[in-house]
C-alpha cells in the first residue's frame, strides 16, 4: 500500500481504475480496494468518482417507448452517490471509477488529445495484396516523371516566349524606346513574306494591322526583349527616337478591350518594375540567366524563321475564353474574354503528342489548402 500511495500522491489529473490497474499490475478488484483505502485515508482534497449501474424506467428517455426498461451506467462524485442510487429502480453495482485532485467539473476523466497522430509515428499500414496493375504504376510514374524534366526546358522557354508574347501585345507608353526596333524587324519580316508565293499576301498585307500586327509584334518583341535586358542596365540608352507613332498606339488600343489593356499594362509595369529592382543587386548572375533565355529564344527564332511564313502567321489566334474569378464582393464572376492564344508550334514539327501523365497521389505529399483542413491534410500528417 505504501508503494501505491507514492504513485497516488503524484496523481493530479483523473486516474481511472483501469489505468491504475495497468500501472500497478493489479486486478480490478485489488485496484479498486487500494484506491478506496487511499481515498479514505486522504479524504480531501482527493475527489472520487463512483460508477453506479442499475435499471431505470424509460421516463427519463423520451426516445424510448413507455414501459421499456433500460440499464443505466452513470458516473457521479461521492457526494451525489446516495441521491443517484435513489433514482434507480434496482441498483446492480456500485464501485469506484476514478480519483483526481482537481475538481471533476473543471477537468475531464477521459480528456486526452484525440485529434493528433503522435501515436502513429514510426508505424505503417500493413501491405495489402494488390493486383499487378497497381505495382506497375509507380514505375510508369517514375518514367513519366523522368521524362518531365526533359520537356520542361523547352516548355518553360516556350511558355516564357508565350508569356512574353502576351505581354508584348500591349505596349505601355514607357517602353516606347524599344518599339523603334520593331520597324526594322518589320521590314525584315516583310521581305521574307514577299518571297513567299501565295497570292493572298496583298490581302494579308492590307489586313495585317488588325491581325498580323499582333503576330508580328511577337517576333520582334522577343528580340526586343533580348535587347531590353542589357538596356535595363543602362537606361540612358533610351532615346526619343525610339518613341512609337501615335497611329500604332491607337490601332493597338482598338484591338483589345481597354479595361483589360490597362490591367495588363499595370501588371506589365509592375513586373518590369520588379525586374528593374532586381537588376542592380546581382548583375552577373542575371547576365548568365539572360544569356540562357537569349540562346533559347534565338534558337526558337531560328526555328520559327525556318518555318513557312503562313505557319508563322498562324502561331497565335484570338480565342474567346471564359474566365472565372471571385469578385471583391465575393461573387463568382465569369466573363468571356478575347485572348491571344498561341497555336502549338509543335503542329508544324513532327512531334509526338504529350502523354497525359496521371500520377497517383502520394500519401503525405498532397497539397494542403491553407484555409480549411481537409482529409488530404490528414494524409500529410500520417
Amino acid at each position, binding site marked *: 500500500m505504501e508503494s501505491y500511495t507514492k504513485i497516488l500522491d503524484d496523481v493530479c489529473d483523473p486516474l481511472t481504475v483501469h489505468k491504475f490497474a495497468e500501472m500497478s499490475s493489479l486486478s480490478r478488484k485489488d485496484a479498486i480496494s487500494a484506491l478506496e483505502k487511499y481515498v479514505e485515508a486522504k479524504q480531501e482534497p482527493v475527489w472520487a468518482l463512483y460508477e453506479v449501474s442499475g435499471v431505470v424506467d424509460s421516463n427519463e428517455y423520451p*426516445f424510448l417507448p413507455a414501459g421499456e426498461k433500460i440499464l443505466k451506467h452513470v*458516473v457521479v462524485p461521492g457526494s451525489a452517490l446516495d441521491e443517484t442510487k435513489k433514482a434507480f429502480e434496482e441498483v446492480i453495482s456500485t464501485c469506484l471509477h476514478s480519483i483526481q485532485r482537481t475538481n471533476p467539473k473543471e477537468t475531464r476523466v477521459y480528456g486526452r488529445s484525440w485529434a493528433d497522430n503522435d501515436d502513429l509515428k514510426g508505424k505503417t499500414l*500493413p501491405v495489402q495484396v494488390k493486383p499487378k496493375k497497381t505495382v506497375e504504376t509507380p514505375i510508369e510514374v517514375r518514367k513519366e516523371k523522368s521524362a518531365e524534366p526533359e520537356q520542361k526546358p523547352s516548355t518553360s522557354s516556350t511558355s516564357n516566349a508565350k508569356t512574353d508574347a502576351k505581354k508584348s501585345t500591349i505596349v505601355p507608353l514607357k517602353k516606347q524606346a524599344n518599339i523603334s526596333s520593331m520597324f526594322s524587324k518589320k521590314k525584315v519580316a516583310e521581305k521574307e513574306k514577299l518571297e513567299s508565293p501565295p497570292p493572298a499576301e496583298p490581302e494579308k498585307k492590307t489586313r495585317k494591322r488588325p491581325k498580323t500586327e499582333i503576330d508580328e509584334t511577337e517576333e520582334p518583341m522577343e528580340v526586343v526583349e533580348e535587347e531590353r535586358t542589357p538596356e535595363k542596365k543602362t537606361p540612358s540608352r533610351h532615346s526619343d527616337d525610339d518613341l512609337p507613332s501615335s497611329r500604332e498606339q491607337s490601332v493597338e488600343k482598338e484591338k483589345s478591350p481597354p479595361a483589360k489593356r490597362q490591367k495588363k499594362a499595370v501588371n506589365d509595369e509592375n513586373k518590369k518594375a520588379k525586374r528593374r529592382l532586381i537588376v542592380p543587386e546581382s548583375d552577373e548572375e542575371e547576365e548568365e540567366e539572360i544569356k540562357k533565355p537569349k540562346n533559347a529564344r534565338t534558337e526558337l527564332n531560328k526555328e520559327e524563321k525556318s518555318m513557312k511564313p503562313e505557319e508563322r502567321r498562324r502561331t497565335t489566334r484570338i480565342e474567346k475564353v471564359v474566365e472565372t474569378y471571385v469578385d471583391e464582393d465575393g461573387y463568382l464572376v465569369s466573363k468571356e474574354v478575347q485572348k491571344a492564344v498561341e497555336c502549338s508550334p509543335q503542329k508544324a514539327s513532327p512531334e509526338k503528342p504529350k502523354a497525359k501523365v496521371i500520377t497517383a497521389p502520394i500519401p503525405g505529399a498532397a497539397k494542403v489548402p491553407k484555409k*480549411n483542413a481537409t482529409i488530404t491534410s490528414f494524409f500529410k500528417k500520417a
Partner: protein
Amino acid sequence: MAAPWSNTLNYKNVSDRYILTEEDKKGAFARQYFEIYEARVKELKPRILENAERVIGKGKFKHVLLSDAKQDEEIFITGVIVKRVLARPSILKSLLSEDKVAYDDVDDEEDDVKRYAGSSEDRIELESEKQTVRLEGAISMEDCATGCCVGVLGKLGKEGVFHVSRLVWPAANVTKKATTEGTLVFISGLDLSGDTEQDRLTISGLEFMSDWMNTNGEENQCPSIDRVVMIGPFVETKSNGCDVQSVVRTLTLSRPERQSSAKSLITVDKLISSISEKLLVNTVDVTPAVGDPCSSMWPLPPIHRVCLPRCGMNEKKVNLVTNPYEFEVDGLRIMTMSGENVTELLRTSHKWSGADVLSNLVKWQHIAPNCPDTLDAFPIADRDPLVMSSTPHVIICGNQPQAEVRRISVDGTDTSCLLVCLPKFSKTRVACFLDLSDLSLKWQNFDHQF
C-alpha cells in the same frame, strides 16, 4: 498475459452483393437510372408471380401487360409504384425559382423527421414496361413507396384509371433460423465534429462503455461480446449533408466550409481501435453512413483503411464493411443499415414510424425502394443489389429518432424477423446489446458527464 484473439461464433460476411464490381463501374458515368428499375423488376417479377399463385391461386388470374389490358377485364399486372407527392421538395424547382433556401433549415436538435405535407392531389401510379396508369381502390399512400415492385389485381376503368382489388408483393426467401449463444452490440451515429468540447459527452460515453467492456465479474455484468457493430455516420454530417438544403447551398455557393472532418476522423480511429483492444470484445465491425469518408451512393462501400490507419493496422479485430451490412453468425442472418433509407421513407408518410418502415421493407422485399428517387444510388445496370435476396432474421436500423423493437412474421413463411431501430449515440449515449440465445434486447445508457 492476454488471451489470443478468436471469435466465439462462426462468422460469415454475406455482403458481397453490396460491393461494386468492375462491371458495375464500367460505363457508369453515362448510365441512366432506368436500368436499375429494369433490373429490379426483372428480379422481383418472378417472385411476385410466385406469391400471386400462392395468394390468389394458380391459374385464377390472368397476367398480361398493361398495354394489352382491356376495359373492365380483371387482370394481373406488375410494375413499379410511383407516388406523386406535390409537397415533395425538388432541387430543380428551388433553383428555377431562384430560392437559395427554399425550405426551412433543418433543426438537428429535433428528433422527429420533417414530413411532407399531404395533399388531396397526391396520387399513386404504376409504371409497367410500356405504360403508366393511375391506381385507385384498395391501395393507399401508406401501403407503398416510390420504387416498390408490386403485382396488382384489378380492372382498367373507362377514365384510364386502374381499379385495384388486391396487391401482391414479392415472395420472401428466408433461411432457417439457427439457435446460438452470444452477445452482439450495436451502436450508431457518433457524429464527431473534431471539437473536443462539442464531442465531450460522446467521447466520454464511448470510453466509459469500452472501459466497462474490459472487465468481467459479477459486479460488472458485462457479457463476453463477440462483435461490436458500429454504424455511421462517425463524423458530423452538417457540412456533408445530402438533403435538399445542403445541395441547394452547394450549388449556390452559400454553404459555409467546415474544418472538422480530419480531426474527427482521427478521433473516430482512436475510439474504434481502443474498443477493439478490450478484453471482452472480439471484433468491431465498422459500417459507414452518408457523410463518412466514402462514396455517398447506396450501397456504400467500406471506409478505406487509409482513413482509419489504426483500425487498418488491426485488421483481425476491426472489420471495415459495407452499408448495408449483412452477416451470418452460426446461421443467424443479421442486417444492419445506417438509416437514410428509412428516414427518407418516413418523410412520405405522417403515420409511419421507424419500425413500420422496416416491416414495409420486409413486405416489399427491398432495402431501399426509394433508391435512386430520394436516396443517392450508384447507377448499376444489370442488377439491383438492394433487393432482399434472403430476408434476414434481424434487421438493425441506425440513426432513428425513436428506439423501437418489433417482431414480425414474414409473410408466407413460418419464421419471424426482429426489427430494431437504434437511436444516435451522440444524442442518447445508448447502445443495444442483443442476446442471440433468445434474441432479447437490452438498451444500455452510458452517462459520463466528467
